[in-house]
Structure formats: C-alpha cells, structure tokens
C-alpha cells in the first residue's frame, strides 16, 4: 500500500458526492471543519449516566462524514462484490489497496433486516463493527480515498454540531419527533434515511433510526483520564466487546438519543446466531445498529492504518 496524506489541515474541505464505479449509488459527504468542543454531559443533564463525564475539551482535525446512515443498498455492494472489477479511471491515490485482498462478508442464512426490509433508503442494521469497518476498507479500495468509521469524539462533535444542550435542538425530548425515529414514533422499525429534519451541520438521523458504530473500544471511565485539551482521542479496540455505539435507535426511548449517551456493544447482539462459532460479520439481534462513514484527509502510516479498519 502506498499511503500519503494529500491534504494539509489548513486547506478547508468542501462537501462532495462520492460515486462508486459500477454502481449508480452515491454517498453524500459533508465537510466538517476542524475545531474544539466540550465532549460529555454536565452532571446536571437529565438522565445523564456516569460514563458521560466529566465534560472535557476535545480538539479535532477536519474530516468528511456521510450525510446519511449507510443503506442496505450501499452495504450490499460490498456483500455481493459484483462491481469489484469495475475500475474508476480517475481513482484517487490517497490509499492504494488490492480490492481482492479484502475479505468479503458471508451471505447470511436469515434475512438480516429481520423483517424490517432492505428496500431503497433503509439503513443497514445487524452488521458487526468489524463488518462495517471492512465496508470502509472496501470503499477505500474502490475509490482511493481513506474511509473509516468515525471515532466516538468525531461522532459526538458532529451530533452536537456546535451546541452544548442534551440534544442539538435543546433539552426538551418532546421536540425529538421532528428530528428522529425513536421508540415513540417508529412503530418498531427503522425508516428511510433523511425523512426527518437535519441537524445544524446538515446531518440526518444522527439521533435514532439506527444507532451508529464508532471506532472506539467502549471504556466507561475514559473521560476521567483526559486532562486539558485532548487531541483527536481514539481508544483503539483490542477486544471484541464492548465497542462504542452512539445515537440511539428506533427502538430506544428519547433519553438514549442524547448527544452524550454512550453505549457499549455486547455479546447478546449475536444471541440468536444459531451457528457455532458465531459469524464475525453479522449480528442477529442488533438490527438497531448501523453506521455512517468518515473520510479522513489525513491518511495514517501504513503500520497504523489497521487500527482504523480492524485486523
């Protein structure tokens, strides 16, 4: 792999649309400026959990994040691998990976939408964090850009979008209906992405619909160890459980959709996988967890890049 940074942090990023050679599907990517924000929630926040504090300052470089959660249609491009041979003559060179060297997700025995559907615009669910990361790696190989999951800090920075209240629209969960699918309005299922209002940075469904994988190992008390301003925090995952999930889902009550809420994955999310050993690609009991993707203009050194894609 030849990996070289192609943007300096001073250059401001612009929104763009990622095309995928061999497919008519596109991914809209929103440019997120570098900046600082207060991560976590104050002790006074209603329903606040101890893992949300203390509030501490975090500084981040700029990056792009997908405007919407990744859909089944997009994810299935990776599962089916039918377009691997369609090569874009204008492929970028931020990363250069042999697409055939990326292992493919298995075809699952059951419908992994568990009856909630995989039609146009429906968010993918039941993928493991590993599988979501391999989708990013595959997309990187297809496009030549460095795609990965957001870190927990990047996710919260995007969810807050410059705000410091429990939700980006304030503290009153009654307003959530305008922005999110949660248990109260979802009728027990996820919905097409982008049906509700976006947040101040133009991102849809940051709260609810499907909860979203981040890159980090879930470490409940990690905020306590952060002093001063923490630069680009990322807890590299070294064990399968728990990994950090953000944003809450269609199946959660409003208090779980706050910007600061953190959730660790657990083994029960594969509870009903009847096979043994269980699939590393699919959860069978977490249709409420999907993901969105980040494009990072700063490509890490080759020796570090698998921290972002998993081994």
């Amino acid at each position, binding site marked *: 792999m030849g990996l070289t940074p192609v943007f300096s942090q001073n250059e401001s990023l612009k929104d763009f649309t990622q095309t995928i050679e061999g497919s008519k599907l596109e991914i809209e990517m929103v440019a997120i400026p570098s900046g600082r924000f207060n991560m976590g929630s104050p002790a006074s926040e209603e329903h606040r959990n101890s893992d949300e504090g203390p509030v501490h300052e975090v500084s981040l470089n700029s990056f792009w994040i997908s405007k919407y959660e990744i859909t089944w249609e997009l994810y299935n491009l990776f599962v089916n691998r039918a377009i691997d041979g369609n090569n874009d003559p204008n492929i970028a060179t931020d990363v250069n990976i042999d697409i055939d060297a990326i292992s493919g997700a298995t075809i699952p025995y059951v*419908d992994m939408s568990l009856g909630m559907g995989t039609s146009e615009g429906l968010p993918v669910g039941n993928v493991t964090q590993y599988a979501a990361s391999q989708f990013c790696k595959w997309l990187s190989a297809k496009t030549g850009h460095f795609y990965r999951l957001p870190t927990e800090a990047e996710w919260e920075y995007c969810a807050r979008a410059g705000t410091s209240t429990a939700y980006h629209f304030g503290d009153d*969960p009654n307003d959530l209906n305008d922005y999110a699918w949660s248990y109260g*309005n979802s*009728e027990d299922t996820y919905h097409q992405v982008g049906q509700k209002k976006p947040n101040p940075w133009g991102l849809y469904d940051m709260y609810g619909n499907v909860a979203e994988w981040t890159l980090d190992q879930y470490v409940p008390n990690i905020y306590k160890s952060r002093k001063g301003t923490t630069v680009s925090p990322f807890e590299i995952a070294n064990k399968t459980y728990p990994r950090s999930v953000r944003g809450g889902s269609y199946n959660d009550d409003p208090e779980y959709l706050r910007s600061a809420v953190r959730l660790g994955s657990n083994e029960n999310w594969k*509870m009903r996988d*009847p096979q*043994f050993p269980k699939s590393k690609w699919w959860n069978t009991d977490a249709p409420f967890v999907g993901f969105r993707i980040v494009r990072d203009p700063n490509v890490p050194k080759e020796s570090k890049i698998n921290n972002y894609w998993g081994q």
Partner: protein
Amino acid sequence: MKSSKNKTDVNPNTSRRGFCKNTALVGAGMLLPGLEMSAMVNVLNNKKLKLAVVGCGGRGTGAANQALKADENIELVAMADAFQDQLDNSLMNLQKEFEGTKKVNVKDAHKYVGLDAYKKAIDMADVVILATTPGFRPYHFEYAINAGKHVFMEKPVAVDAPGIRKVLEMAKVAKEKKLNVVVGLQRHYQNNYLAIADKIKEGSVGKIVSGQVYWNSAGVWVRPRKEGQTELEYQMRNWYYFNWLCGDHILEQHIHNIDVANWFIGEYPISAQGMGGRQIRTGKDHGEIFDHHFVEFTYPSGAVIASQCRHQPDTWSKVGENFQGTKGSIEMNDAGAASIVGLDGEKMFDYRNRNDPNPYQVEHDRLFASIRNNEVISDAENGAKSTMTAIMGRMATYSGKVITWEDALASTKLLMPSEITWESTPPSVPGPDGLYPIPTPGVTDVLS
C-alpha cells in the same frame, strides 16, 4: 407492513413507556418457573448426562454448545458426521469454548465418521442432538427413540411423507417411553411469540380468519463442486439444493412461519394450492429446488393462510407473520415486533423484546430441566405435522394441483432412500448439460 392508521402519535414519555415496562415484566415471568424448578431438582437428581451430537455442522455445533450450557452436570461423549473435517472442526471449536471444564470429553474412538456413524454415537448417550441434513432425520430419530434416548432434533424433521409417518409413529413411542423430544422450532420458546399465543388463548383477537406468513430473503450459500468429489459427496456438501436431503427452502426455512400459523390457529390445514418456480437461481450450482413458492393453506375452521417464501436478492424481504382475527390483527417480525391492532386501528397490545433470553438456549434449558424433573416435552408430533404442512405446500407448487392433507400424508413418494452408502447413486443426477431435472407444474407427480 404497517397500516397508516397504525401510525399513532404517541407521546414518547408517557403511555407507551409505562405500558412497556409492564409487558417486559410479563415476559420475564414467563420463563422463570421452569428455570427455578430445574435448579431445585438438580439438587435431587445429580446424574451426569451424556450427550452425543449427530451432524456437526454450524447448527449441530451451536446446539451442542447450548446443550452443554443448559446443565451443570453434562458431558459431550460422542460425535458423528458424514465427513471427518466437519467433525474435527466442530470438536475443536467446542473444546475451545469449554476449555477448563470437563464438559467436552470426546475420545478419538468416539468420533464416528460415515453414513451409519450415528448409531454408535447415539448408543453412547443419554441425550442426543440430531442436526444432520433433514432427509436423514426420520431414520436417526427412529434409532434414538428405539434406543431410549432423549432427543433434541432440528427442523424440518423429514423431507417426504414416509419420513413424516415414521416420525409420527416414533413420537408415540417416545411418549410411551416418557422420553423428552424438543424440536428446533424456536419460536415456541421465544417470549414475543409466547406472549401473543397467550393473547390468542384469552380471545383478544377473536377467531383467526386469515394470515400471511413470509420468509422472503436473498437466499443462502452455494458450495461449488470440488475436483475429485463423487456426485454423492457433492450433493451432501451442497445439501441445500437437493430435495432428498433438504426438502426445498419452503421446508428448510419457511417451516418456522408456517408452523406459527398452525400454532396460532390451533389446527393443521386440510389442503394447499399454490405456484412456484426457479427464476433467479437456475444454474448448475443450484441443484433442483425452486427459488420462490406462494401457497394458500386452507384450515378446517375456514381460515386461509397465504404463505410466501423467496430466495431472490434485491427483492422485498420479510420474515414474519401477520394474522387477521375477528377482533384484531397480529403483526410479528423476526426483529421481535409483536403487536395486536384492534378493528378500530388502535393498538391493543405491543410486546417490546428487551433483554429476552435466547430462544435457542431456552430450548435446551427447558429440555434438560424437563429431564431432571422427570417431565416429558413432546414436540415431535407438532414438528412432524408442521413439516408435513410445508411438504404439502411444496407438493402444491411442484405439481400445480390442489393437494389435500389426507393425500399428502398418505403419499408413498420416497425422496430419501432408506439405505444409503458412499457407493449409492443419489436419487437425482444431472443430465449431460450438468443441470438437474426440475419439477414442472402441471406435469410433475408429487404423490406417487
């Protein structure tokens, strides 16, 4: 799909949350008595139970894993599979999982490989797991019950009517011998289904008059032919695509949803008619099964159930069950949704599946608790009749005729040979073009 009337504006903070907390308690309570009882009786009945697994694929290994976790005093002593590599992998994975315990104790001499390996493994055990491809099941079940063993067997329990008759006969013998038989139709052990079954019993939905049951998905794995394989080995490895081994996907997967219809209506259908075929999955790698079936099942009470199953990528997918009753409608899906909407469109009941136990584990917890309690679980008759329902559906789509339960069950058509060795010619062989004969509606005779 949800009706628009169904989309009520519910304040997320009030009624529904309070309501759900109540239903969650109901769910938790439902399984408690069984577990408490097993803990109590374990003190009294401390015999070490010996377990054998027959069929060491992913599911057989998964079932063994769950069985070993269901009881403290249990030991896996024997394994059987047609293929050495499959058995070895399975044992390795189980040894890893139970490292540091004495639960996996399979000596080299008790690893039985081959087509009649099941007998020796069953002989060694108190409890056996039957998880080979479905075609073999009636023969394995017959042997296990005659040998006096408790059984966990996977669904479907047969692929043809002679097989069903054998299972029904042995189900009676099992009852007489007070042997426990649990069938892997795990919805019977899943709290959201049990909650709805209770509601039906209470009369909340009235009489069920119609329903739709679905297993529409993208399909399953294909295992390509490998050099040096005999035709028999190829078919055994790629068993999903051959009727004598699998029974078609209307049995192998859709049986779950068809069984829920039988369970909730409380009857087995008197006839079936439908259509089906192969449209997407038509290659040499795809054996002889259809990729879609649509069947109407008519029940003695007059209820008609529309059953659809499809294995076609990029089409509408749904796995679940809907039923319409004289007082309300039931809607369920695999993600755990289970609700009842009244005739006025108002939601009467909604089950929220938080922290429910794993039904695959519950199957085994209940099996072993029942053994310890000297109780008898008898799933085999329903397992056989629900399998028969799916077979009748397949007979309807393959033939294009109306098939009655009576004719279907009396059918002498034997898909699975009673004797099979590595030298046997499989019941279905490819033509010179590499393609297998495919059932043709209007032409194919399914009954004899």
